[in-house]
C-alpha cells in the first residue's frame, strides 16, 4: 500500500548516486528486501516503471533479492524460519526471539552508464 512513496525514495537515491558518479543513466537497481520489512516487491516493480519515467532511472531493471525472516533460539542459538502460530525452535523446542534477518530494506548497488 505504501510502496508508491517508497519507490520515489528508491529512485531519488539511485539518481543521486548516478549523478555523483558522473554517469548519464541508471540501467539497474539491486534491492534487498526482507520479507518482514513489509514491502511487496511486485508493487515496487510496478511503481518503478511509472515513477521512473523522465528520470535518470527510466527503463532501468529492478532486481530484488528477498530475505526470509529468521528467529534465533533462546536456548540453543539455532537460526530458523518461524512456523505459523509458533515460535518454537525445530531443533530443541524452546521459543526463538526476533533477529534483524528479514527486516532488510536497502539499495545494494546500481549499474550506470
Amino acid at each position, binding site marked *: *500500500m*505504501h510502496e508508491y*512513496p*517508497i519507490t520515489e*525514495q*528508491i529512485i531519488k*537515491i*539511485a539518481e*543521486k*548516486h*548516478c549523478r555523483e*558518479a558522473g*554517469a548519464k543513466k541508471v*540501467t539497474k537497481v539491486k*534491492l534487498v528486501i526482507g520479507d*518482514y*520489512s*513489509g514491502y511487496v516487491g511486485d508493487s515496487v516493480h510496478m511503481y518503478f516503471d511509472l515513477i521512473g519515467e523522465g528520470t535518470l532511472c527510466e527503463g532501468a531493471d529492478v532486481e530484488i533479492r528477498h530475505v526470509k525472516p529468521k528467529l534465533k533460539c533462546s536456548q540453543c542459538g539455532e537460526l530458523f524460519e*518461524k512456523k*505459523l*502460530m*509458533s*515460535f518454537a525452535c525445530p531443533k530443541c523446542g524452546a*521459543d*526463538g*526471539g*526476533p533477529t534483524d534477518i528479514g527486516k532488510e*530494506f*536497502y*539499495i*545494494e*548497488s*546500481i*549499474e*550506470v*552508464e
Partner: protein
Amino acid sequence: MHDVRKIDVMEGILDENDHIAQHVKEHLSAHGVLIVNEMGAPGVGKTTTLKNIFKHLNGYKPYVIEGDIESDLDTQDLKGMGIDTHQINTYGACHLDAPMIDHMVDHMEFDEKGILFIENIGNLVCPAEFTIGEHVMMLISTVTEGSDKPYKYPLAFEKADIIILNKVDLIPYLDFDEEFFMKGVRALNKDVPVFKVSGKTGEGFEEVAQWLMERAGRLEVKEHSHEHHHEHHSHEHAHDHGHSHDHGHTHEHK
C-alpha cells in the same frame, strides 16, 4: 559501446525518514516532551485509552496529534476536553511518517514539559514499519481481537515499549487465552510491560500513566545533563528547521 559501471550503494531506503525522526525526537526532548507513538488496529480504543490516561497525568501536559485517514471526530472530541490536539489526515495512506510529524510539530507550541501522544492510523501492520521520532511505542491490543495477534502481527509486538491489553472487562464473555497471548508476546519482546485495562470501567490506567510519567521524568534528567551541549547548539535550531530538509547526503547503513 556504453560503459556500464556498478556502484555500491548500501543505502537504506528509509534512512531519510529515520534521520528526520531522530531530529523530531531531539527537538522535543529539548522541550522536555516525551513522544509516544500509539498504534493498534481500528476499534481497539486508542482515543479512549488516551482519555483515560489524561485523567491520571500530574505535572505533565498532554499534547495530541491525531492521525486518521479521514475525519477529525477524535480531534473535536479531545479539543472539547481542553486537550491541545492537532489533526493529520492522510487521505488513504496507511501510516504516519516522520516528515508528516516534523511538519506538524513545527506548528505546535510546547510551552510546558509534557507528553505528546501521536495516535497513529488504525492499522496493526504499516505503522510498525515507520519510526516517527517516538521515545515510546505504545501498542494497544484487546481481548476481543483474540489471543493469536502476536503470532500474526509479530513486528508490532516486537517493536512495542509498552503493551496495553484493553477491554479486559469482557474476558468472562470471550475465549481469550491469556497464556497463549503472553507466550507470543514474551517470545517477541522479553521485557515489555503489559498492562491490563478497561476503557469502559477505567481500571488499570493509573498504572499506565505512572509508567509514562516515569519515562518522561527520565527524559528530564537526561536532558539536564546535556544542558551545556544544548546551549552551544542554541535554540534557533529547534525552531528553524521545517522549511527544507536537505538530507541528501549519504547515511551510514546499519
